[in-house]
């Protein structure tokens, strides 16, 4: 089932495989990893394994550039987090950071080689407006959206439209909960917020607890539009799990929290695919516990058919005859999970037939 054409996860599972790579294989590896946004992380892996000398001279700059950019972004994110902290302190709000920026703030392994150009904040819903106006004062402006999207955001989404600072590349997303109000699974944001912990060495910056952070990464895998960086997100999860597993009682805590939030089924799938692509170690008892809640053989087969294709790099060389079908299926599935049918049908209709008419993408040429 595993497509031999997919080289990125192959190298993560078995870095030594690159010793036998032809120049043609390197060509495919670089293109797939670039598409998956995993060039820098792959480079760091090869450096750690003492294998960077095996990278052919002609391909080397692709890896080095990706790593250098990730480092620059990490420095930039830290600088902006400090700036945001000062701004939110004035409102008396703690700065709760999510996703990539949180990995940077907490100094996690998952931050290494991770391109991050967005800062995601968790803010209690009643404070959303205040935070937005504070951001505006500091030159972060709402990214302009078509009118339909703007209305949709205001009514249904879990976040305000992105805020872009004109002077730097980072986009800020302010969330009041981790999944849209319309989604099937809806972990209580107040619970996440209450347990957020202060980062040692980064005062007044808060991140989710280990298990909440992992469950958040799990929900994103199955709720993000079209999974543009599916394999990267899965690799994040792999690194988060490997690091978390060194904490005492991590797995029982994770399972308990997943049950509390009714996220056992998504956790089952996420662990299934993270093991498939990255050989992530998962204890037998966790495995057994989750197998009990597994879906029927037939639905599992269908899900495998879809997600093993979807999570591979979105690159021509990884695609087979069913990839495009799988992508359409996940598009529908993520929307299905995010919205009840009475919203879903009009939304997809608008996206399919009306948005293309209104969008006037001018040709951008250098």
């Amino acid at each position: 089932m595993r497509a031999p054409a997919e080289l990125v996860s192959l190298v993560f599972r078995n870095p030594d495989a690159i010793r036998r790579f032809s120049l043609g294989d390197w060509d495919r590896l670089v293109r797939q990893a670039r598409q998956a946004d995993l060039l820098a992380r792959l480079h760091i892996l090869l450096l750690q394994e003492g294998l960077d000398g095996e990278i052919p001279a002609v391909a080397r700059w692709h890896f080095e550039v990706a790593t250098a950019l990730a480092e620059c972004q990490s420095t930039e994110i830290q600088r902006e987090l400090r700036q945001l902290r000062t701004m939110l302190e004035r409102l008396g709000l703690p700065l709760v950071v999510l996703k990539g920026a949180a990995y940077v703030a907490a100094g996690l392994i998952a931050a290494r080689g991770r391109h991050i150009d967005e800062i995601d904040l968790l803010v209690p819903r009643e404070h959303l407006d205040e935070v937005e106006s504070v951001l505006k004062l500091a030159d972060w402006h709402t990214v302009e959206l078509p009118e339909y999207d703007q209305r949709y955001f205001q009514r249904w989404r879990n976040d305000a439209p992105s805020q872009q600072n004109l002077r730097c590349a980072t986009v800020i997303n302010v969330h009041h909960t981790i999944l849209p109000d319309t989604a099937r699974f809806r972990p209580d944001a107040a619970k996440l917020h209450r347990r957020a912990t202060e980062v040692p060495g980064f005062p007044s910056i808060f991140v989710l607890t280990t298990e909440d952070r992992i469950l958040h990464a799990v929900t994103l895998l199955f709720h993000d539009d079209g999974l543009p960086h599916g394999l990267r997100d899965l690799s994040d999860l792999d690194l988060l799990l490997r690091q978390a597993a060194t904490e005492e009682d991590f797995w029982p805590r994770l399972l308990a929290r997943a049950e509390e939030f009714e996220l056992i089924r998504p956790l089952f799938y996420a662990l299934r695919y993270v093991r498939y692509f990255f050989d992530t170690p998962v204890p037998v008892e966790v495995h057994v516990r989750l197998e009990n809640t597994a879906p029927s053989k037939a639905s599992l087969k269908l899900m495998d058919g879809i997600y093993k294709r979807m999570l591979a790099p979105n690159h021509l060389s990884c695609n087979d005859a069913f990839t495009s079908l799988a992508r359409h299926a996940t598009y529908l599935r993520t929307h299905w999970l995010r919205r009840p049918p009475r919203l879903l049908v009009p939304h997809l209709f608008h996206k399919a037939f009306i948005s293309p008419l209104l969008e006037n993408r001018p040709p951008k040429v250098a």
Partner: protein
Amino acid sequence: MKLLQLPPGELRRQLAGSCIWLRTGPFSLRVQSRLETVVEGLADLYGQFEVRNPRETFADFHVAVDPHISLRRWLRPMVNFSFDGIEPFSPLPLDQAYPMLEWGLNWCVSSHAHQYLMVHAAVVEKNGRAAILAAPSGSGKSTLVAGLALSGWRLLSDELTLIDRKTGWIHALPRPISLKNESISLIRAFSPDAFLNRASRDTAKGTVAYLRPPKESVRRQHEPAQPGWIIFPRWVADGKSELLPRSKQQTFQSLTQHAFNYTQLGAEAFRVCSSLIRQADCYDFQYSRLDEAVAVFDRLAASAVAGGAGN
């Protein structure tokens, strides 16, 4: 092997089939296209560049220019540029297929090659010193660079100044020079032997034609050059050609505005830019006649040699 050494028909066959592998400056490309204008453009302009059997090689950028499939193609055929399956631009009319390839290649470099500080500027070299010509479009930068390249200056690039972040030297990418509107006839008059390809009309930039890069510039494309001058050219209707010193502070500011990746590189960009400014002389330059302009540049290069700055 050079592209012009390919047997007749082979270029067309490779471009339409798997692809052709081509080296331009520090970058290797795989280009694919079934369009006759693209075959013609490459044959006309890239004859001196190295090609290889594409099988089992590595290429930095995989690009294609192909017909855009839509219902409208029956009314007005359109073409698409794609980079490894991504289409960064909206389709353009068929007649603009060749310029679209060139614009697409510029995009590939400017959005990926962060091992360089990349400045949106032309660059030419004489006696071992490079002149960076930075200016907004419409200021006569391409005309000036074409005139210089046709008068014994080595062409490094007409659009992309690639500054090595470690050494501060400039790497050459001597692809064809893009000429727009009146500058096409101006260059034809300036140098009747110069080869320009078939013009594409009504593009976003008006009429566009490409000047074949001088053979010598292509032969020396792997030789980096030391920065010597940063010059901001401006064409004026009537007036004498003159170089006016420009403050380093002001030059620094304009340079960061012209850089593609100044923000991405963070503090490193500041360091590379400052060291560049320190070693270069900075000028504003206005001109109305190309031959006079070339003479001014030649004197500049000669004075640098006399002053011992060439080493």
